């Protein structure tokens, strides 16, 4: 068998990198498998205005670069690969990437969450051709056009406000009759001269052959169906936890989030932190904080487990 590590951290966003910093400073010798989306959701944000310590704000990718540098400085080993399979039923635990098989006494899972899609065939077909989940990436291609944003949370508000600077008109399509976004963001959208809101509207399909022509919506109250013309539709309806790897291995809640007690999961020695287990806060700062907690919990667990193994070894 290959070398057995003390702890492997899966996922390289704020939670995983913070766990790596703490575990490295505790001389646990963490290995962190970053995945292709290393840096996590902050890599696709621009300005982060609410991370303490940066009164002028900081770019998301820059912040992640700093986290990473700090983890490396204390000797965390970073592997850029995608985990393809885990085995949490044997000890030590098994973690597979395309190229490698790794073993560890303890695992910290920080695989985060990904933007959710509507789940329509027409949406999949037109993704990249007017269907997008990233206004800052793709808004550029739709200058002075009419656009639709789907969603009612803070992300949807941010996308709409960003796009309103570029587009001739933005329509926010929301399936309820009020936003769940924070008041400050909702007010900015409602007061914007270029943004209209279509309440109680469920997206039935995205219309268009090679490119998006519009969005077909059904009014949840009247049942009326109409097409809102749009050159692009930006989907911002929330996030899903990245837990496909753990479906048969760990207890998850009905939405797929890892169930935790503190940072402990249903398997002893496996800890989870960050958005993959957070159904409430989902902030960079809370992800980082729970990463710290997971590192401390795993370190204590390792100490106890290894101590037990060495004493029982003496008796044998």
């Amino acid at each position, binding site marked *: 068998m290959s070398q057995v590590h003390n702890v492997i951290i899966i996922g390289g966003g704020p939670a995983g990198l913070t766990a790596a910093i703490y575990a490295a400073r505790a001389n646990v010798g963490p290995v962190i498998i970053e*995945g*292709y*989306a*290393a*840096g996590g959701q902050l*890599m*696709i*944000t*621009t300005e982060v205005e609410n991370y303490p310590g940066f009164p002028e704000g900081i770019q*998301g*990718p820059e912040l992640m670069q700093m986290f990473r540098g700090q983890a490396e400085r204390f000797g965390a080993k970073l592997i*850029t690969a*995608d985990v393809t399979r885990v085995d949490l039923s044997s000890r030590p635990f098994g973690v597979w990437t*395309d190229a490698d098989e790794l073993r560890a006494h303890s695992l910290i899972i920080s695989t985060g969450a990904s933007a959710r899609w509507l789940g329509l065939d027409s949406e999949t077909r037109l*993704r*990249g*051709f*007017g*269907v*997008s989940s*990233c206004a*800052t*990436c*793709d808004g*550029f*291609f*739709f200058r002075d056009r009419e656009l639709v944003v789907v969603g009612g949370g803070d992300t949807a508000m941010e996308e709409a406000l960003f796009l309103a600077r570029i587009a001739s008109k933005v329509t926010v399509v929301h399936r309820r009759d009020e936003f769940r976004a924070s008041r400050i963001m909702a007010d900015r959208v409602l007061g914007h001269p270029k943004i209209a809101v279509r309440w109680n509207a469920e997206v039935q399909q995205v219309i268009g052959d*090679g*490119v998006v022509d519009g969005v077909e919506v059904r009014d949840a109250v009247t049942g009326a169906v109409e097409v809102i013309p749009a050159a*692009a539709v930006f989907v911002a309806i929330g996030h899903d936890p990245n837990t496909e790897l753990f479906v048969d291995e760990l207890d998850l809640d009905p939405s797929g989030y890892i169930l935790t007690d503190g940072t402990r999961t249903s398997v002893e020695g496996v800890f989870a932190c960050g958005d993959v287990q957070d159904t409430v806060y989902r902030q960079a700062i809370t992800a980082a904080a729970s990463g710290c907690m997971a590192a401390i919990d795993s370190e204590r667990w390792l100490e106890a487990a290894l101590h037990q193994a060495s004493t029982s070894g003496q008796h044998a």
Partner: protein
Amino acid sequence: MADVLEITADNFQAVVLESERPVLVDFWAEWCGPCRIIAPVVEQIASERADSLVVGKLDVDKHGPIAARYGVQGIPFLGLFEHGKLTRQAVGAMPKAQLEKQLGLAS
């Protein structure tokens, strides 16, 4: 290790359209987060397939008309050009295996 070439309006014809080998073009922009995520994946493909594939990146901010010509409306847009024609494409950040599959690159 093969470099990822800088593709511009000036060299697009020669480097991409007139290439004997297939060319993978990463349409990207500075302000695009997922483009930064996919960039190391593209670099890895470039070094692994240095013998069979030319790999380049094109800044859509500077060379918008080329992006528009190929209907690029979302980035990162990874386009595979064979004998001067766009034959396969993948849009958005994704793991390497998935990208290679979408581009039809045999492993």
